């Protein structure tokens, strides 16, 4: 089973990288772009087929290491 963890900066937390990407897109001529936010995607292979157990395990990983709750949100996808 594969877990995909999306980590993104919380709303309101300054994202200078997202801002720089937005500026670069505008300078390339792309129009109609609102705010750009940059995040991370972490893929983890999980052994076994128990989805609930995997969800709980990845949740714990997020809380302990993968995301910093002070500045980041995360979502978990299992497939």
């Amino acid at each position, binding site marked *: 089973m594969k877990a995909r963890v999306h980590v993104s900066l919380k709303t309101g937390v*300054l994202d200078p990288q997202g801002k720089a990407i937005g500026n670069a897109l505008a300078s390339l001529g792309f129009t109609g772009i609102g705010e750009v936010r940059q995040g991370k995607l972490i893929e983890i292979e999980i052994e076994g087929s128990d989805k609930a157990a995997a969800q709980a395990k990845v949740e714990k990983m997020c809380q302990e290491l993968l995301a*910093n709750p*002070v*500045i980041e949100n995360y979502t978990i996808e299992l497939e």
Partner: protein
Amino acid sequence: MKAAVIIFPGSNRERDVCTALKRASGKDPAIVWHGDTELPAADLIVLPGGFAYGDYLRCGAMAAHSPIMREVKARAAKGTPVLGICNGFQVLTEAGMLPGALLANRTLSFVCRDVYLRVETSQTMFTCGYETGQAIRVPVAHGEGNYTADPATLDRLEGEGRVAFRYCSAEGELTDEGNFNGSARSIAGILNETRTVLGMMPHPENVTDPLLGGTDGQGLFDGIVSALQ
């Protein structure tokens, strides 16, 4: 005063801080590897600057979970003072020993130059070598030093006198230009609840020798030594 300096893979300012500590205390600090699980007896623990674990995931995130940090936390809980400089500050926030987090500088650039700091309180074992309100010139060298915390945490830090240093102008005024990295409320260094853990982004250890351009950092190390003797 005997210090222990923790080295993580990627630390690079340990020699600088050891030199500053030796100059102030007359004793060579013990060097402790991050993979160790035991700390020697120490009056002060220092987490030096650098790029521990290559700043993977988030600055300080990996180092915060390295084996020695369990012991560092245990000693800190018993009252042993801990000083985290630059990457060391990032490690302390990631380890939950100080509140808030350090984001990318607002300009997105790595800034390596001298800046001015205002000493916000001399009522700590780390800052007792300075006067409250004194402006000192100290170098910074970081890409992620933009301090952030929620407004309630910032209010608490200010209300409890736990802001140790703020970025300022040469005259000690809080200006937008002086706050080069965009830190919330110009914060450059903070203390924990018991005022025994200090994290700061600038490098006082690099201005303790006139040959290297200044001695404004000496007060921090002299202050620590006098407070611990």
